């Protein structure tokens, strides 16, 4: 029953505000996290067994009658579902302590669950218009979550995000309208079949450009990135983690990959455009990250840079490249989720995000410092952590397909990544403990627990990368490469 991925979070989010009236903290905490945990367990166990016979298309039944809700699960969507549930659960656990001082926790969880339902729906739908609708579901929830702190900075960031997101939606909708006008179909396979019959390259190219602009804005690829460095740092830390770790990938990268591989078809020209968009994002955002002194802003620029790697990998178009891109997507989701959580712990303990004011915090917050270091090393591509393997695979795939220049860029940018993460480590955690931080305490239990859980996952993916690769990444890459 894969509809559960959409139905359960929506149902729980609908009752949460009422539950919040009865119990302000405990019940919402339990209910939301239980829902997320249930979905994770289902993704890890149940859905895999279902998928063993091949891609599933499910027709939902309601009161014994078939309703026209067709959702599909294949290797790629299952992989995305797994990543979504994994990071969401850690974020949910972290929120137990972190969201305490924001108030209205039940509402917060409800919005979080709507966002999760939106992402799940997007991943499961096999119809262009449903993709658009679920894109909006996740986006509307995320606007409110970015502004959740209600400060001037948060509201401005949220408004900027909203405005650029609307442009993205308009571009996506125009592209869908063009394709629907030509083929009279909205389903992925229907549109793809229609396009094969028509051979309308110019118009398909225009639709592709509009999709690229729309989803590129959602994925915050350079030059469409202006909203992200404001929106992601302004949100509460767990929301930053889910936005950077998941949302830009689901509503940007997943949609690009799905539509370009399964609907429009990845032409060599499109492949080149994707690779160069990725490469430019990697380099420019890495340089921008270097100059930041705001911890979360540095992480936000790093997200743009790392999404560049994912797009670069997927853009290569070879099975190995796609697998590398998807593997990096998972590694980045885990590690960046972790880094935003630890940055939240630091911000809550010290009251600042300014790296120049910190120093020596490792002595007072050993767990936070340790887990932060693990996340940073993984993203920078230090062996044996996950990020190393995925970057290695992308670089090998680039060399195999004769893109040596891009491979060199990818390697050099990786050094830049290590550089700015070391700056972060040195300024925040290493060195002498400043006088004013003597009284700083380690983050509360659930915040630390969520960070440690993610850190263990980052290490686990790195150490058992062969198993992870063959059970999750390879099936995903295969189903992406061959289509429905």
């Amino acid at each position, binding site marked *: 029953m894969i509809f559960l991925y*959409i139905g359960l979070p*929506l149902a729980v*989010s*609908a009752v949460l*505000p009422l539950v919040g009236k009865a119990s302000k903290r405990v019940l919402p905490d339990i209910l939301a996290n239980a829902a997320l945990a249930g979905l994770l367990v289902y993704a890890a166990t149940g859905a895999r067994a279902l998928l063993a016979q091949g891609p599933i298309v499910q027709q*939902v039944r309601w009161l014994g009658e078939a*309703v*026209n*809700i*067709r*959702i599909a699960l294949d290797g790629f969507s299952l992989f995305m579902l797994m990543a979504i549930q994994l990071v969401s659960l850690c974020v949910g656990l972290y929120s137990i302590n972190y969201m305490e*001082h*924001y*108030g*209205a926790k039940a*509402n*917060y969880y*409800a*919005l979080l669950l*709507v*966002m999760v*339902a*939106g992402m799940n*729906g997007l991943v499961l*739908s096999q*119809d262009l*218009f*449903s993709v658009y*609708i*679920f894109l*909006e*579901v996740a986006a*509307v*929830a995320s*606007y*409110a*979550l970015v*502004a*959740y*702190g*209600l*400060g001037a900075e948060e509201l401005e960031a949220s408004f900027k995000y909203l405005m650029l997101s609307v442009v993205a939606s308009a571009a996506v909708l125009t592209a869908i309208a*063009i394709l629907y*006008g*030509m*083929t*009279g179909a909205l389903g992925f396979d229907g549109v793809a079949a*229609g396009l094969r*019959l*028509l051979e*309308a390259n*110019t*118009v398909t190219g*225009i639709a592709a450009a509009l999709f690229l602009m729309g989803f590129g804005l959602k994925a915050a690829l350079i030059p469409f990135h202006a909203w992200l460095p404001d929106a992601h740092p302004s949100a509460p830390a767990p929301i930053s983690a889910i936005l950077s770790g998941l949302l830009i990938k689901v509503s940007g990268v997943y949609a690009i990959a799905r539509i370009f591989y399964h609907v429009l078809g990845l032409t060599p020209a499109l492949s080149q455009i994707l690779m160069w968009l990725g490469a430019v994002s990697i380099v420019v955002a890495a340089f921008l990250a270097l100059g930041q002194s705001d911890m979360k802003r540095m992480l936000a620029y790093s997200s743009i840079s790392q999404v560049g790697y994912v797009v670069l990998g997927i853009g290569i178009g070879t099975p190995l490249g796609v697998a590398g891109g998807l593997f990096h997507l998972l590694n980045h989701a885990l590690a960046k989720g972790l880094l935003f959580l630890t940055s939240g712990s630091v*911000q809550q303990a010290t*009251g*600042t995000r300014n790296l120049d004011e910190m120093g020596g915090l490792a002595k007072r917050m050993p767990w936070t410092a340790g887990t932060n270091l693990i996340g940073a090393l993984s993203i920078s591509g230090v062996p044996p952590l996950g990020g190393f393997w995925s970057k290695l695979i992308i670089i090998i795939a680039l060399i195999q397909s004769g893109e040596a220049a891009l491979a060199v860029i990818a390697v050099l940018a990786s050094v830049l990544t290590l550089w700015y993460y070391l700056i972060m480590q040195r300024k925040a955690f290493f060195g002498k403990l400043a006088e004013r931080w003597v009284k700083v305490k380690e983050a509360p239990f659930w915040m630390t627990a969520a960070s440690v859980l993610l850190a263990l996952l980052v290490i686990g993916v790195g150490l058992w990368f062969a198993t992870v690769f063959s059970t999750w990444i390879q099936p995903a890459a295969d189903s992406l490469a061959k289509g429905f």
Partner: protein
Amino acid sequence: MTFQIILLVAMLAASAFAILAKDLLKAAVALAVSSLILGIIFFRMGAPYAGVFEISVVAGLITVLFMLTIALTKQGDDVRESKTVKIIFPLFFIVFALIDLFVMRGILARIPALEGAAEAGTFGEVLWKERSFDLIGQLAVILAGVLSVLALFRKRDRHDHE
């Protein structure tokens, strides 16, 4: 055809006025006029349902909401807009018009289309039976909207501003 062009030009003029007008009330009215004309265009092009929704919801309901919001906003709260809008918008407008004239016309004429299948059933059948999954998505959007309002207009006494 001429009538259609007159309608389109009028719609564009109303939209441009909505962006350029300083008075919010005038801008809201201009927007309503623009979507009213769009509704008429929908009717004329054989999409009566889209026309009905455009006129009743966008021209009607949303305009009422805008008016109410403007009426409820206190005086002295107005934010000064930057002057660049006055320069940038016409610039964009002219560029888009030129693209439209020279590029899009040529392309639109050449958009091929498959023989469209006959409309399957009535509007209601399409909405409820064909696009059921979208309805769930729309419910979720409404839910997200309600929750956003609840969250953003909550009492913020417990939040400590760093």
